[in-house]
C-alpha cells in the first residue's frame, strides 16, 4: 500500500505526459484532410481561422498554467507524517478581486475581434453571384435562378467572385457547411438564411449537413467545385443547353427509353432538362435530385457512393442497401432487368 502511494507522484506526472503527447500527436495528424477547417480555401473560413488561432494559443497558456499549478500544488503540499494543521486561511480579498478582473480583461480582448468578425461575416458583398440552396431529407438542391437551371448535390461556383448562398429547407432543419470555404449556417423550413463567401482557389471541396435531420443525416454530403471564370461560364452554358440527346441505336438511347418505361418510371421523381420520351413525356419529376448532368458528378446518393457505373447499377437496384431509410425505392429485376439497368446506367453516365 505504502509503495503504491509513493509511486503515485510519478503516476500523476505520468498522466499529464500522455495527455500532452496526445495533444501534440493531434496537432501533427489533424488537418490536411478533405473536410478539415484548417485547410483554408475561402475568405469566410479564413476569417474564422484567424480569430481561432490567437484564442487557441491563449487557451494553451491558460491550460498549462492551471494544470501546472494544480499538479504542482498536489505534489508540493502532499501531507507527510507529522505535518501540523496548516494555517486556516479563509481568503484574501485583494487576490480575489485581482483574479476576477484578470479573466475579465482576457475575455474583453477576445471579445473585440469576435464582434468585428461577426459583423464582417454578416455583411452582404456588392453584387454577389447568388446560388439558392434547398435542403431536403437527405440531399441538396442547388438552384441557379439568374441562369435558369437546377442541379443537385454538387455546387459549381467561380473562383474569386463573391458568392451569396441563399438557403431554405423543404422539410426539417439542415445545416450547410463546407469547412474549407465558409462557416456553417442552418437551413430552416419557412425561413431564408444566407452565407457570403469568396472562394480563393479552384478545386473540389467537401461539405455535408451538420444539423441532425433524421435517419440519413450521415449521408447528406455535398461537393463544391470551384472553377476559373471561363470554365464556370462553359459549365453554365452546358447546363442551360440541357441533356445530351443519345444517338439512335446506341445503348444510351436504349437507357433513355428505360428511364421512361413503366417498370422504372424514373421521370416521376427526377428531372432531366431537355429529355423527352417518344410519347412526348417530359422528365420533370421534382421529388429527387435533378439528373441533367449526373454523369459529371463525383457522388451518388448525396455522397453515399462514388459515382462509378458499378455503384450506379447497385444504387438503382437497391438504394436502401447503402442508404437505408432514404426516399428512393428499390427496383427488382421484374421492374428493370439487368440488361435494361446497364443501359440506363450508360445513359445516366452520358449526361455530362
Amino acid at each position, binding site marked *: 500500500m505504502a509503495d*503504491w*502511494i509513493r509511486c*503515485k507522484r510519478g503516476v500523476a506526472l505520468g*498522466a499529464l505526459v500522455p495527455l500532452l503527447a*496526445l495533444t501534440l500527436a*493531434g496537432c501533427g*495528424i489533424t*488537418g490536411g484532410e478533405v473536410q*478539415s477547417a484548417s485547410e483554408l480555401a475561402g475568405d469566410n473560413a479564413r476569417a*474564422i481561422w484567424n*480569430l*481561432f488561432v490567437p484564442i487557441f494559443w491563449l487557451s494553451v497558456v491558460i*491550460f498549462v498554467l*492551471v494544470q501546472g499549478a*494544480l499538479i504542482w*500544488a498536489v505534489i508540493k*503540499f*502532499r*501531507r507527510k507524517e507529522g505535518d501540523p494543521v*496548516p494555517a*486556516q*486561511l*479563509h*481568503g*484574501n480579498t485583494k*487576490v*480575489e478581486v485581482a*483574479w*476576477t478582473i484578470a*479573466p475579465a480583461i482576457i*475575455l474583453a480582448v477576445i*471579445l473585440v475581434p469576435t464582434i468585428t*468578425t*461577426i459583423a464582417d*461575416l*454578416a455583411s452582404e458583398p456588392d453584387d454577389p453571384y447568388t446560388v439558392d440552396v434547398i435542403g431536403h431529407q437527405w440531399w441538396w438542391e442547388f438552384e441557379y435562378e439568374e441562369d435558369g437551371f437546377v442541379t443537385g448535390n454538387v455546387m459549381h461556383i467561380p473562383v474569386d467572385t463573391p458568392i451569396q448562398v441563399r438557403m431554405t*429547407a423543404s422539410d*426539417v*432543419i439542415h445545416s450547410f*457547411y463546407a*469547412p474549407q470555404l465558409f462557416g*456553417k*449556417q*442552418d437551413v*430552416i*423550413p419557412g*425561413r431564408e438564411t444566407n452565407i457570403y463567401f469568396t472562394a480563393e482557389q479552384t478545386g473540389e471541396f*467537401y461539405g*455535408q449537413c*451538420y*444539423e*441532425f*435531420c*433524421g*435517419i*440519413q*443525416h*450521415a449521408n447528406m454530403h455535398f461537393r463544391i467545385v470551384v472553377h476559373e471564370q471561363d470554365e464556370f461560364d462553359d459549365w453554365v452554358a452546358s447546363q442551360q443547353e440541357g441533356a445530351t440527346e443519345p444517338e439512335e441505336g446506341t445503348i444510351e438511347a436504349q437507357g433513355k427509353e428505360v428511364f421512361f418505361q413503366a417498370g422504372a418510371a424514373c421521370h416521376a421523381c427526377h428531372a432531366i432538362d431537355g429529355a423527352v420520351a417518344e410519347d412526348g413525356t417530359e422528365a420533370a419529376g421534382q421529388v429527387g435530385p435533378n439528373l441533367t448532368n449526373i454523369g459529371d458528378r463525383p457522388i451518388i446518393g448525396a455522397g453515399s457512393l462514388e459515382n462509378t457505373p458499378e455503384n450506379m447499377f447497385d444504387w438503382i437496384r437497391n438504394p436502401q442497401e447503402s442508404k*437505408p*431509410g432514404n426516399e428512393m425505392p428499390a427496383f427488382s429485376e421484374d421492374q428493370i432487368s439487368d440488361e435494361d439497368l446497364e443501359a440506363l446506367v450508360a445513359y445516366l453516365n452520358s449526361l455530362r
Partner: protein
Amino acid sequence: MAQAVAAKEEQTDRWAIIWDWITTSDHKKIGLLYFWTSLTFFFVGGFLALGVRSQLAVPNSTMISPDVYNQFFTMHALVMIFLALMPMSVAFFNFIIPLQIGARDVAFPRLNSFSYWVYLFGGILLCSGFLFGDAPDIGWTGYASLSSAQYTPGASGDFYVMGLQVLGISTLAGGLNFFVTIINMRAPGMSLMRMPIFVWMTMITVVLIMLAFPTLAIALFALMMDRNFDTVFFSATEGSVVMWQHLFWIFGHPEVYILILPAFGIISEVLPTFSRKPLFGYSFVVFSGIAIAFLGFGVWVHHMFTVGVGPIPNMVFSTTTMLIAIPTGVKILNWLATLWGGSIRLTTAMLFAVAFVGMFTIGGISGVMHAAVPIDYWQHDTYFVVAHLHYVLFGGTMFGLIAGTYYWFPKWYGRYMSESLGKIHFWLTLIGFNLTFFPMHFLGVDGMPRRIYTYPSDYGYELWNLVATVGAYMLGIGMLLMVWNLIKSVRSGEPAPADPWDGRTIEWTTASPPAKHNFDATPQIRARDDFWDKKYNRTDEAEPPADEHIHLPPGSYVPLLVSFGLMLMGAGVIFTLWISVIGGIITAVGLFAWAFEPND
C-alpha cells in the same frame, strides 16, 4: 414444521423491509433509492454510449442500423442527463442536505417520496420505447420540425414528450422541497453565510430548477399538442420551428448549470477536507455561484448561433456567454488556492475532486472558444462540441459525483469504500476518459459532424475514432470497478467512525450511518465549518442535552400511488387515451388520500 414457520417469518420480514422502503419518507433512505436507481440508469446510458462508440470504431460500419443508432445516441443523452446525473445529484441533496443543516428531515417528506417515485416511473416510461422498438430518435434536443408527427410519425416522439413531461414533475417537486428545506429548516445559528458550500450550491440549483423547468414543461406541452391534436405551434408555415429552440434552450442552458452546480458544491467540500484548510474565498465562491445562475438565463442563444438570429443578437449573447466565464474562472482559482498551502491527503475522493478541477477547466476553455461566434460557425454540431460537453458533464459533473460518493459513503453505510480499488478505478477513469474525449477535439477540427451513424473512409476520421472507442471501453471497465467496490464495501468494507476524514461540517458529528432521527440534540451552529471549529477551537464546549421530543414523519404509500397514476396519464398519450383516464382517476384518488392522510 418449525422450519416452515421460520421461513415464513423470514419472508414476512423481507416483505416488511420492502414495504418499509416503498413507503419510506426518510430522506436518507430516499437518498439511497435515488443513488442506486440513478447508478443503474447510468449503466443503461453507458451501455448505449458503448453501442455508439462501437459503431463508430471503424468507417462504413454496419454493426448498428441507422435507425437503432439514432435511438441509441438520443437515449444516451436523455438517460444520462435526466435519469443519471440529475437524480444522482438529488441523491446527494437527499442524504446530505438535512444532515448538513442539522435538520431531522426535509420540509415535505411525502413530497420527497413522491419525487422519487415519479422519477422512477418517468424513467421507465421514457426507456420503455425500446420495448416497442420505437425509442426517441430525434436527438435529446427534439428540434422542430423533425420532432413533428409528420417527420417522426409513431410513438418515438411521444415517448420523448411524455417521458420528459412526467420526469419534470419529479424535478420540480424536488426543487421546491429542497428550497423550502434550506430556507426554513436550518439549525439555530446557521445563517446563510455559515451554510456549507454544498448547501449553497444546492439552493442555487433548486432555484434554477424552479425557474427553468416550467419552460420545458410548456414547450413539451405545445409539442404534445402539435403531435397529437394538430396544433401548429412549431409548424414551419403557420408557426415557427425556431420557437422550439428558444424555449428548449431557455430551459436547456440553465439545465447545464443545474447539472454542474451540485458537483461544484461537492468538490468545495472535498477539497477543503483533504487539504485541512477552509475553502479559499467562501463568499466569492457563493456569489460567483449566484452570478452563474443569474447569467445562465441570459446565454441561451449561444446554442443557436448558427440559426441566423442576426448579427446583433449573436454579439450580445457572445458577450453574456463570455461574462459567465468570469465567475466560473474565479471558482477554479479559488479551488486552486484552497489546495495551495494545504496538507493534502490523496484519497480516492480527493483524486476525483482534483481531477474535476483539471478536466472541468478543459471544458471551460473550449466553451470560451465557441462563445466566440465565428468559431462556433465552425465548431457547432461537430465533434469539438461533443468533446466540450463531455469534459463538462463527465469530467465535471460525473467526476464530482464520484468524488462525493467516495467521500460520503462512510456516512451512508458506516463503512469505507476500498481505497486500493478506488485508486485503480480513478486511474482507469481518468485515462479512459481522456482517451475517449480528447481526440474528439481533433475530429471536430477535421469537420466530423456529431450525430452521424457512420463516416466515409477517406476523411481521415479513422484513427481518432478508434482511439476514442478504446478509451470508452476502458472508461466502462473503470465504472464497473466502482460498482464492484460499492457492493463489496456495503457488505464488508472496513467500518468507519462518525468522522472518518477529520471533516469540517456537522454531518460528521452524527453516527455513521446516522440514526433515523439524525441528531440526538438539535445542533447549535456558531461558525462556518462549525464541526472543525468545535474540534480545534472550542474544545471545552459541553455537549447539549438530547432533545426530549423527536417528531419523525410516518411512511406513506400514497406518493407511490399518485406517481403511478401520473405515469399512466403520460402513457395514455402515447398509446390510447383511456389509459390516461385510468391514470387520472388513480392520481385523483391518490391526491385525495394524500390530503386526508393522518399525519402523526
